[in-house]
């Protein structure tokens, strides 16, 4: 068994504290000097139902979940309803153990709570353990927790046992418990942790652990952060002080984080009647001079189409975030997918006049959240930040210094009253808010309450004062000016380059991807190159305006390109081809849409089979291969 990484999976029932326990343990691993990456799997249920979180920890940087895992801590599911194999969802009681065996690597470790789980209910469990050389430790975690505190503290007992079995010191875990737990429950938890640790060390000979915790060291202070955290902190640092929303998984995370922080810094969070209102409120607040945002997931974002169009037409800056989940309709609420790409690009009537950014990592989520606000306010255009359940929920360590940047409360081209007086006005004192000729297409705006800034904002086509107009000349002048902004934004994005590149520049093959699959693709590229396959990748973040030149140069530089995305219809590949207008014979797709994100090996295998061996039927039952048009 490899000692260079620990992939620890904690499984149990939804509502059993799996998420908080794993978050603390991830932090402890990070503080011990390791790089960490978490992956969550949970059902759309309030209580009960099989859930797990995986933590991958290594001395080297980690950008993805791993292939399978090597340490299982299986806890009971307190809310399991059906102990029968024949029930609709099968035997729920045994699931924390039975559901997780397929992906456990050879030589892996299993710790399970024998107080709640009976391994004899799993057919051929012993044979499978022997075959795969698993090391199995049945421990009565529930009994231990009950004797020393309360039954729910069995998670802590499991963490204590884990530390004993991987040779990890307890001090980091203890420090975190002291930070996170209220006085009342701290002492029994600390006692349980230590007792479980000592009990395992006494009962078993673990001088040479089956799976050891790697050792690493950080050069600077790290923070454990999710994509949702990063988006929120980016918004706050860029001066966002207003959010309106309606709950929907997985967007609720950003809404919750913003709501926690905004009131402390003089901002407002409003939970309103629906997503139409939420987006319209953000538009109204921005119109009145506050940096504002809203957001939702697929179905809720559909309701935002109208206010989005209003923001485009009235050139009101606003940021909307869209947290994708598997669709159509209610789809699979807690499962990631990237299939809202076309939805956010094209929803709302008329020619799209918006910016769409899709960050690929937690660091990029922070940077592009700030970028989204900056572009929205500088260019008076709605900007959409597109991400998914995977990026929103995964936690990684990020150097604290990544966030050492100046805040930016600037509202963009907004005029002072003195400057307003210099601007053109109509006879009756109306300010020319929408001038035909404007630098970069951006006509400066006033804020209601300012002297000399009176104008009308309207969703109708309008003349320079905002007055409704159907004059053909005015129409062409206004729409051309609004569209010009996208060209200027493209030029600005070219100077920033939000793309992420991996692999040798002169590689023979390429992989194109967007958004949250970037880290997994980059790990696959590393492995393919180690195996002697010459391949590079390009993770694209600008969905609109599209970096046509850069993508074209990338495609041009290689023999063949595999496009990797979590959609069933190849939406990203379609976008690439729409913008490039050719190369259909060079692009193949690797698609996954079963509700789980790619594992690196699936991309490696898919690439080798489809591109290297040229197998047009390279799909497995979980991934789909769509060959290039010429094949």
């Amino acid at each position: 068994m490899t000692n260079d990484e620990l992939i620890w999976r904690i499984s149990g029932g939804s509502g059993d504290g799996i998420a908080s326990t794993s978050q603390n343990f991830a932090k402890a691993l990070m503080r011990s000097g390791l790089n960490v990456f978490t992956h969550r799997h949970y059902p759309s249920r309030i209580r009960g139902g099989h859930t797990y979180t995986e933590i991958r920890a290594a001395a080297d940087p980690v950008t993805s979940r791993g292939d399978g895992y090597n340490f299982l801590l299986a806890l009971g599911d307190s809310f399991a309803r059906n102990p029968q194999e024949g029930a609709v969802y099968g035997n729920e009681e045994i699931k924390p153990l039975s559901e997780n065996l397929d992906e456990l690597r050879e030589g892996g470790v299993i710790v399970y709570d024998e107080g709640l789980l009976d391994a004899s209910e799993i057919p051929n469990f012993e044979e499978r353990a022997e075959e795969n050389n698993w090391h199995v430790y049945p421990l009565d975690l529930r009994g231990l927790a009950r004797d020393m505190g309360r039954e729910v503290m069995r998670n802590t007992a499991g963490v204590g046992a884990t530390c004993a079995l991987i040779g990890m010191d307890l001090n980091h875990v203890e420090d975190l418990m002291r930070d996170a737990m209220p006085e009342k429950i701290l002492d029994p938890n600390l006692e349980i942790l230590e007792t479980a640790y000592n009990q395992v060390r006494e009962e078993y000979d673990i001088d040479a652990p089956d799976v050891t915790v790697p050792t690493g060291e950080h050069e600077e202070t790290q923070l454990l952060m999710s994509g949702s955290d990063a988006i929120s902190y980016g918004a706050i640092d860029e001066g966002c002080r207003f959010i309106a929303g309606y709950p929907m998984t997985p967007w609720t995370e950003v809404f919750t984080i913003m709501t926690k922080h905004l009131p402390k810094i003089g901002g407002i969070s409003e939970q309103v009647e629906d997503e139409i209102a939420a987006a319209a409120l953000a538009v109204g607040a921005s119109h009145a001079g506050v940096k504002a945002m809203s957001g939702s997931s697929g179905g809720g974002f559909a309701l935002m189409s109208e206010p989005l169009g209003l923001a485009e037409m009235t050139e009101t800056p606003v940021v909307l975030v869209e947290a994708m989940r598997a669709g159509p309709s209610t789809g699979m609420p807690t499962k990631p997918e990237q299939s809202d790409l076309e939805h956010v690009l094209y929803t709302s009537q008329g020619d799209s006049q918006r910016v769409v950014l899709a960050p690929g990592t937690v660091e990029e989520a922070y940077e592009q959240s700030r970028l989204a606000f900056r572009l929205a306010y500088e260019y008076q255009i709605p900007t959409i930040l597109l991400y998914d359940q995977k990026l929103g929920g995964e936690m990684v360590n990020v150097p604290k210094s990544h966030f050492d940047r100046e805040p930016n409360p600037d509202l963009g081209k907004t005029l002072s009253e003195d400057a307003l007086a210099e601007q053109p006005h109509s006879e009756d004192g109306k300010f020319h808010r929408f001038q035909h000729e404007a630098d970069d297409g951006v006509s400066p705006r006033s804020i209601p309450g300012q002297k000399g800034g009176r104008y009308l904002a309207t969703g109708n086509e309008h003349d320079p004062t905002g007055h409704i107009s159907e004059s053909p000349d005015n129409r062409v002048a206004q729409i051309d000016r609004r569209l010009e902004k996208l060209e200027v934004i493209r030029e600005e994005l070219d100077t920033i380059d939000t793309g992420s590149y991996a692999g040798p520049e002169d590689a023979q093959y390429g992989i194109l991807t967007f958004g949250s699959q970037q880290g997994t693709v980059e790990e696959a590229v590393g492995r393919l190159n180690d195996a002697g396959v010459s391949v590079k990748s390009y993770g694209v973040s600008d969905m609109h305006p599209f970096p046509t030149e850069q993508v074209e140069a990338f495609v041009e530089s290689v023999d063949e390109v595999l496009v990797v995305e979590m959609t069933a219809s190849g939406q990203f590949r379609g976008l690439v081809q729409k913008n490039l207008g050719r190369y259909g014979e060079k692009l193949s797709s690797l698609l996954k849409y079963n509700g789980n994100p790619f594992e690196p090996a699936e991309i490696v295998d898919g690439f080798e089979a489809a591109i290297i061996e040229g197998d047009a039927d390279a799909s497995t039952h979980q991934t789909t291969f769509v060959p290039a048009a010429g094949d």
Partner: protein
Amino acid sequence: MSTFSAIGEEREIDRDEYTPSVEPQPTWCPGCGDFSVLKALKQALPEVGRTPEETLLCTGIGCSGKLNSYLDSYGFHTIHGRSLPVARAAKLANPDLEVIAAGGDGDGYGIGGNHFLHTARENHDMTYIVFNNEIFGLTKGQTSPTSPKGHTSKTQPSGSAKEPLKPLSLSLNAGASYVARTAAVNPNQAKEILIEAIEHDASPTSTSSLSVRRGTRTRASTSRTSTSTSPTTTSSTRRTAWRPRR
């Protein structure tokens, strides 16, 4: 940061300041009640001392939505049914603005019905005017949520089977603290009602109180109006105003 010297300005206000020079004559049908609402509003605003540049008028879509074109203040002509969410956010963002929302019965009680209920529930210190003519006017006379039962139109040729909505009791139920009804055929009363509505101090039940407040305010009172529905109908001349005890 911007200053907002239009807010709280103390001066005489001429009602003609509200009349645009671009299109001073509204395009409403001759005899339409909308003319008298416009006139009443132009009279009410100078009387409560609010200048065009400290007033934000948010409208929906329909004949009433054209109000913005004929009343020269800061304006936001939004989309069908959505004047209220835009207006209340502007009020939250800058509580010193005089925020007025306006729309028709189709706009406010049909497509925007949900916003109507929830805005009344939040009871912001702003005014909402509904031009209730019991039909969809701009799209040529279709049945609306307040059309009487049996109302025939091209979209309801055999007559509406539904009882009309009761917007006043709905808004009271939802929590608006000032609700009044007046008639376009009685413009003096309409003006008085509008003044009362604008001057009414609502106590917002919305979660937030904002500190991104801007501008300086010199006047003594800090807020004056409530979510108040003042539907002006062409039929009724009866005045019904209701205020809760405090």
